[in-house]
């Protein structure tokens, strides 16, 4: 059995950064400052005083204490719909399951039907050996319990597991200005930046409690001042930078401070089907190499379009990103494969889950490359990860491409590639990926699209990147 990778390396902080993890720096706060208590509305006070039952009372007491630690002075109503990051049922999350059980037994549900992050495994589209499956079953021994509790607490349906819940096919898409209490870092960055909804980076547990109450403490990214930028990022690359690389660079530099990015409107004219996938991946990279919950992009993202450089706070710092800087960042990525020069065993595409457009583009790219090479089987097992909804849409609208991909041996799993790689029995496989997030949290190696395409077709990496 492979060695596990759980020695502090998974989760929101694989780089061990000294941040608050809320997406809002509190470096300026001192003990001597005023730390106001939250002012509750009458109905909230009733819950706090236990007049609506002890379970709701525990929920609001936790949420209020949590908010006060980060400077919240009141609770705000939530809009849109919840999305929860807990998607694996194991003994490690037993305390949360116990809380979920108490909430369910009290007959409570979230304020709107919710979606959740993808499950760790997909035995249909990404199967493992019987021996490995037995080990996996032991690790994720509470999956059925979690799924059952989720349904009782308001999960939208049994197929609503995806980190990219905001994509139109899945439809958990908040409106601009909606307050949310989400906890999936990549989704948080997307809805804050690309949609203009408002959510802090919440911890697992607090997200569910907020969603049961339909309220969240107002601090950080739920406030106008918390959404102001303190970094000016000047992009001076000669072409549209790879989203994973520029996101990675910004994450390393800004950690959890909000950046205002300029120079990208030379390449991106607004939010559309193509750019939304790009921004999804860029944001996920900022949230995995750093802890960013929001980035503004001049001329592109909604708040930057409306407010422009008024979003920049006085005294901001500047970071210039050019081709050389991105090259420098790429060269810092370590090779964590057990056999550093080994032949990749799998190719994982899409973390966060692919959009419909990304799946179509990658599917077409693979088909074209296979045709050109005269091949009928991929050189290495290849997986394009997406939600059940995106998968269905792709297969329905592109039946010929989907059929060819299946014939070549390309699968479309609906689970989380990152968790799959982090599951102890899988940890030592040599995985090649196009995702910086998967790279950061696992031993997978990141490669650019051309290299991955050659790998998929031939089973070998190009000599210049191997």
């Amino acid at each position, binding site marked *: 059995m492979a060695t596990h990778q759980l020695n502090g390396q998974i989760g929101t902080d694989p780089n061990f950064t000294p941040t608050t993890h809320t997406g809002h720096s509190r470096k300026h706060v001192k003990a001597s400052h005023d730390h106001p208590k939250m002012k509750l509305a009458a109905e909230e006070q009733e819950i706090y005083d236990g007049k609506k039952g002890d379970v709701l009372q525990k929920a609001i007491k936790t949420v209020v204490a*949590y908010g006060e630690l980060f400077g919240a002075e009141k609770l705000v109503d939530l809009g849109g719909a919840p999305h929860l990051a807990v998607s694996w049922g194991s003994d490690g999350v037993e305390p949360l399951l116990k809380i979920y059980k108490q909430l369910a037994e009290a007959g409570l549900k979230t304020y709107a039907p919710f979606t959740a992050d993808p499950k760790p495994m997909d035995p249909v589209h990404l199967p493992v050996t019987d021996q490995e499956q037995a080990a996996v079953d032991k690790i994720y021994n509470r999956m059925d319990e979690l799924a059952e509790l989720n349904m009782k607490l308001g999960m939208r349906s049994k197929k609503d597991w995806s980190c990219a819940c905001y994509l139109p096919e899945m439809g958990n898409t908040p409106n601009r200005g909606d307050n949310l209490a989400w906890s999936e870092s990549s989704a948080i960055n997307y809805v804050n930046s690309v949609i203009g909804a408002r959510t802090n980076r919440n911890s697992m547990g607090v997200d569910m409690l907020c969603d049961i109450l339909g309220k969240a403490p107002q601090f950080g990214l739920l406030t106008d001042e918390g959404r102001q930028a303190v970094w000016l990022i000047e992009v001076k690359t000669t072409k549209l930078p790879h989203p994973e690389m520029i996101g990675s660079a910004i994450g390393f530099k800004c950690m959890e401070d909000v950046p205002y990015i300029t120079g990208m409107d030379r390449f991106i004219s607004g939010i559309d089907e193509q750019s939304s996938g790009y921004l999804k991946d860029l944001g996920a990279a900022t949230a995995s190499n750093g802890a960013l919950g929001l980035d503004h992009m001049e001329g592109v993202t909604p708040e930057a379009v409306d407010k422009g450089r008024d979003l920049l706070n006085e005294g901001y710092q500047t970071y210039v990103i050019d081709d050389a800087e991105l090259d420098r960042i790429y060269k810092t990525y370590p090779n964590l494969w057990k056999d550093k020069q080994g032949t990749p065993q799998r190719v994982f595409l899409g973390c966060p889950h692919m959009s419909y457009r990304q799946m179509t583009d990658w599917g077409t790219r693979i088909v074209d490359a296979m045709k050109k090479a005269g091949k009928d089987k991929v050189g290495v097992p290849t997986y394009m990860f997406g939600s059940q909804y995106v998968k269905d849409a792709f297969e329905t609208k592109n039946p010929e491409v989907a059929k060819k991909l299946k014939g070549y041996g390309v699968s479309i799993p609906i689970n989380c590639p990152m968790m799959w790689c982090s599951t102890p029995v899988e940890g030592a496989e040599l995985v090649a990926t196009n995702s910086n997030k998967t790279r950061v949290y696992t031993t997978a190696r990141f490669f650019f699209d051309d290299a991955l395409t050659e790998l998929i077709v031939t089973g070998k990496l190009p000599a210049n990147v191997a």
Partner: protein
Amino acid sequence: MAKATFKGRPAVPGNVEGSVEVSHIGFNTCATYVDVLIAGSDSGVCQDHDNQDLFGHDLADKIVCIPQTIGSSSAATLFMIILDKGIAPKAMLFANHIDSLAACGILMGDNWLGKRIVTVDLLGDDFLDAVTTGDKVKVHEDGTIEVG
């Protein structure tokens, strides 16, 4: 008379006293309790081999002094697990601002398990220079820390 006194923010207030365990680097909750998470261990001994200040030290019922917690998002549930198992520190003293993972875990333990880790943050960088593992400290509910 106390050797030194510090005033922080009582994040989860309480009055406790005892001997301290001091880490000068970020406290990696997941790595510290990795055997609790993976193997169901009932031990509060720090397993984080990257933390030479605490590695091998039993932190159960101790007062743990740290800059901040770092690492996996599993930290919140881990705080609840160690509280449930009775192997948690009695107090956590943060030189910096508490992070959301520790805050969430400690507050959920407090409110849902009825078990408290007294927590004080914002004690300042000097605090960790003033305490040494084995020192006796008193934690007051207003966030005052008396060392020695």
